């Protein structure tokens, strides 16, 4: 392997890690501000101008808090669980093209760590492994709320993962490739994928809410029912890792939806790159928007929704797409 390629890849990885860790922090700021504005409040206002330095204050707090390992927990698993959530979230980002390729000083940079030919499959699989964070953390915590949260996580997981996979089959059948760059280029020639596959888009979005644990499906760590769920016994930076993982997941899911269904970065021009960032920002905003507007549903309602309504819809969608492609 070339040295230049190695160095480039390492730089990309470091860039993704730093940018998205910082974005996770900024994401909390935007979440608080947007939720506040929607509820006629002001949100954080004290630290820095318009409270922008609240991110730094929270970061200092997370980093300097004591790391408590409670007495009865299974210490080894308890310690490693948050790392799984954060690590898998960032590992999943390896196959996501964040921007179109550009040239700096005659050197072409592809802002994707690895354009593997099973891109979508890889991203979904690694994101799914992220479930082990809440699951193991909740089971190792020796706390009934954490245990409930882990049980919910597992029950919900098998429901929504079916939808994620089945909903993507139809678009992938049309494109004939798992690579996210191929998916992007396919829409470059014709319309956006959402025009061909509106049902798949809606299903994928719903599954995304379950996957990232955002509000209509915020069951795994539902504050008013089970305290902080799997995070109840965590403190300091271990809890912070869960947090970074969740927010990074939200950003990566927003990238996935934008690339698969909404045209991605288009033809790869500068305007296309900004269009992609705009779409991602919109979907991140949408995740916050629904949190202000919609109520949470119960785990059994989510499971019924997934198995009884969404899964048949996804299967029918795949069938219809198949017939249309065949004839």
């Amino acid at each position, binding site marked *: 392997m070339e040295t230049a390629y190695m160095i480039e890849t390492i730089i990309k990885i470091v860039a993704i890690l730093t940018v998205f860790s910082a974005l996770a922090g900024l994401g909390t700021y935007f979440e608080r501000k947007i939720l506040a*504005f*929607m*509820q*006629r409040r*002001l949100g954080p206002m004290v630290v820095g101008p318009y409270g922008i330095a609240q991110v730094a204050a929270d970061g200092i707090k997370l980093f300097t808090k004591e790391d408590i390992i409670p007495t009865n927990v299974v210490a080894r698993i308890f310690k490693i669980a948050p790392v799984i959530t954060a690590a898998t979230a960032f590992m999943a980002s390896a196959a996501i093209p964040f921007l179109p390729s550009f040239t700096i000083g005659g050197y072409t940079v592809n802002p994707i760590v690895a354009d593997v030919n099973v891109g979508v499959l890889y991203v979904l699989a690694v994101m799914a492994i992220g479930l082990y964070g809440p699951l193991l953390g909740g089971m190792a915590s020796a706390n009934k709320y954490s245990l409930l949260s882990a049980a919910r996580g597992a029950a919900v997981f098998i429901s929504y993962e079916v939808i994620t996979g089945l909903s993507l089959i139809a678009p992938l059948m049309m494109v004939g490739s798992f690579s996210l760059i191929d998916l992007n280029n396919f829409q470059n020639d014709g319309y956006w994928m959402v025009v061909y596959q509106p049902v798949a888009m809606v299903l994928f979005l719903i599954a995304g809410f379950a996957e990232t644990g955002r509000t209509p499906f915020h069951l795994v760590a539902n504050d008013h029912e089970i305290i902080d769920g799997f995070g109840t016994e965590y403190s300091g930076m271990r809890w912070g890792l869960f947090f970074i993982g969740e927010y990074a997941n939200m950003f990566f899911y927003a990238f996935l939806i934008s690339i698969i269904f909404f045209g991605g970065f288009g033809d790869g021009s500068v305007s296309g790159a900004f269009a992609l960032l705009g779409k991602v920002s919109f979907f991140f905003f949408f995740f916050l*928007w629904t949190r202000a507007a919609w109520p949470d549903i119960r785990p059994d309602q989510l499971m019924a929704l997934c198995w009884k309504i969404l899964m048949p819809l996804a299967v029918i969608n795949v069938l219809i797409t198949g017939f249309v492609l065949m004839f």
Partner: protein
Amino acid sequence: MSKLPSLEKYKDRNVTEGSAYYQVDIEDYPTTGWGKFKQVVNRTFRLELFVGLWVVLREMFKFNIHTVQYPAEKLPIGPRYRAVHEMQRLWESGTERCIGCGLCEKICISDCIRMDTRIDENSRKEVTEYTINLGRCIFCGYCAEVCPELAIVHGGRYENVSEQRAHYLEFDDMLTPFDMAVAGKVAEYPGFGAITPHEDERVKTTPLAY
């Protein structure tokens, strides 16, 4: 203080024709399968989820913020709010209004007022010691009501902090500064302890003989 809208029409709590109250029309929850199905269809095609999204988005763009940034901004309190006590002085002369009658000490139901008096050279009663234990005070306002001289009143200072549970307030802390009273900088006291504006209508003539 902004003037509140008239609440007169809300005083009659009976739901009648023309009253301000009305029965909310709530449909019964469906119990049959067909009824539940109709409800689902109805909710789906009226796009209720998006109504909620629209409402919060509208509020965001209206930007009609109701937050009071408390230490920097404060809401006005009612004129007859009962916060920490104040001792008034007479205008012009600046004499303390307290005549040391001891009624406030007697009436205090939480027993937090303590005073000592003596007869001074001009054979007037003079207050030598006067403390209120704010840790015990329940701010009922009896002391201000009973005071015949409008000497002890309830002021508007509601932010208090103390290092110990028994937090004493001394006479001099509560007393209006002498130079302010003499310079006429103190407005006529309208707060708790003063007579209400429509007191004349309320008062009944005392019969001359029982």
